[in-house]
């Protein structure tokens, strides 16, 4: 029989401030909000409708089309980040971590600067650069004889979302770069030297040695990207407005939710449907995170060097 331990107060003390602040300011209000998804307004009275709102969201084509459109766009938005942002971040970090590189600190800072910018000026400057009217992008393409490639990307349904995703990549690539850079620095020199001795150099050294060893960091970045993208809102909002034009082609869950929850222009905010969408988003993200935590993270072992 194990002897009973006295209550370990310090655990409670360590947890208390975080749990209290987080519960009071985040969880309680959010539960209050998500709870609204079970209610609706009928003749000015709030009545309990169970899962009725979800039936509307997924069953009524007016709602469901918008939802699936936003979800699909969001998935693409995420995919672009995974395919562009994270590989670029990894590549930059790999270059930065090469030994005896001069000016690494300068490059690191320069590449991180866009991350610091506020969305308002990011939206403004990219609209200015890509504008067909004020001529930065067309002019630059013209200078290299590729004017014909230019299109008003932000205004075309087929390009707008991808363009915005790439702008977002531009803005946030500093974050994966930082994390991967840190991970690469913590690979012991001797493992790299062993690879040099084994003739594993250059690119194959990166693929066969470094990449597997930074996979756990890539995993964390992926999940942060996932969560970040499925909660994204600001960039689309400042550059395309709450209606996420053209023709909803840049509508993602965040803008869809904002429009519904807080209203827009003549559309009044609908906290009930808004909460329903929020709950659905929450469910999607939770599933993604759990999938990661239980299916992927366990496989990405952290190696003891």
């Amino acid at each position, binding site marked *: 029989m194990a002897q009973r331990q006295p209550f370990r107060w310090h655990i409670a*003390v360590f947890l208390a401030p975080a749990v209290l602040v987080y519960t009071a300011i*985040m969880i309680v209000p959010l539960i209050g*909000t*998500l709870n609204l998804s079970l209610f609706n307004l009928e003749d000015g009275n709030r009545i309990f409708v169970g899962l009725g709102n979800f039936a509307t969201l997924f069953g009524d084509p007016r709602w469901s089309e918008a939802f699936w459109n936003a979800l699909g766009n969001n998935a693409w938005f995420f995919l672009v980040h995974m395919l562009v942002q994270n590989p670029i971040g990894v590549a930059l970090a790999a270059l930065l971590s090469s030994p005896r*590189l001069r000016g690494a600190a300068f*490059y690191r800072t320069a590449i991180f600067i*866009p991350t610091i910018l506020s969305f308002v000026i990011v939206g403004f400057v990219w609209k200015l650069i890509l504008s067909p009217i004020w001529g930065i992008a067309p002019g630059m393409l013209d200078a290299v004889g590729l004017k014909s490639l230019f299109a008003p990307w932000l205004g075309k349904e087929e390009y707008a979302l991808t363009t915005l995703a790439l702008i977002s990549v*531009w803005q946030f690539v500093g974050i994966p770069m930082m994390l991967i850079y*840190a991970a690469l620095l913590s690979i012991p020199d001797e493992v790299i030297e062993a690879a040099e001795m084994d003739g594993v150099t250059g690119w194959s050294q990166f693929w066969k040695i470094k990449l597997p060893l930074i996979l756990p960091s890539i995993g964390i970045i992926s999940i942060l990207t996932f969560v970040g993208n499925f909660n994204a809102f600001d960039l689309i909002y400042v550059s395309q407005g709450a209606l996420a034009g053209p023709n909803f082609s840049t509508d993602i869950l965040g803008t869809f939710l904002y429009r519904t929850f807080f209203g827009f222009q003549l559309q009044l905010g609908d906290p009930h449907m808004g909460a329903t969408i929020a709950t659905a*988003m929450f469910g999607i993200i939770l599933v993604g995170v759990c999938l990661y935590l239980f299916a992927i993270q366990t496989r990405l072992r952290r190696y003891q060097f």
Partner: protein
Amino acid sequence: MMSARHSTGRSIAAHGILILYTLIALFPVFVIVINSFKSRRAIFADPLALPSAETFDMIGYQTVLKQGDFFQYFLNSMTVTVGSLFFVLLFGAMAAFALSEYRFRGNSLMGLYLALGIMIPIRLGTVAILQMMVASGLVNTLTALILVYTAQGLPLAVFILSEFMRSVSADLKDAGRIDGLSEYRIFFRLVLPLVRPAMATVAVFTMIPIWNDLWFPLILAPSEETKTITLGSQVFIGQFVTNWNAVLAALGLAIVPVLVLYLIFSRQLIRGITAGAVK
């Protein structure tokens, strides 16, 4: 000098790629900076031109200085950001320590609970939060903002920090216990200094959204005395016209303090990693 392991060709290529990407990263920033020094007509007449004798115009900065107390706004932003960072790091690290150091019932559930917050935008809880602040008389105080940002930053902080805390040597903590340090001292005197790189990482992630947030300042602390820089700059965004000179000037200036914070933290980060833990 020719050497066995470092070919000049490779390092030129590396610099080439890095310079290219740095240009891509900085070009829009360059556009922002040059245009903040131009008159409105000049911005749109040729956005890529450097400010010349006739287009050079400090009107943006003048407007910023004239309209409202921007120094105060800066101060408010700094207070809120640094204050929230402090609490996020402190409370987050404490919770992360509890989760990674002690085995107790409900440990992993608590971990998941604290992670829920990264999955749902806190903005949705606005009304309840505002009601709470009204009830407690915190509306139009920086405290309200600090509280909200602390809550908002905690989940990610706990998530990342508890990963790192696990790597702190158990022997070290035991040595502290034998030396008579209480669990609190072990945390503050031993563990905290050792996870500095992780703290720096979390600080960078946490501070940017706080610094740039518009929503909560607008709702919780819109008064003149408590305005943040981002909110202060909104005054130039009108219904039909936006005063881009002023927006560029204000928000361009606004990146300076964050950049300084970033430099501080990233130095901590890199130094912490390369110094390595002592075996």
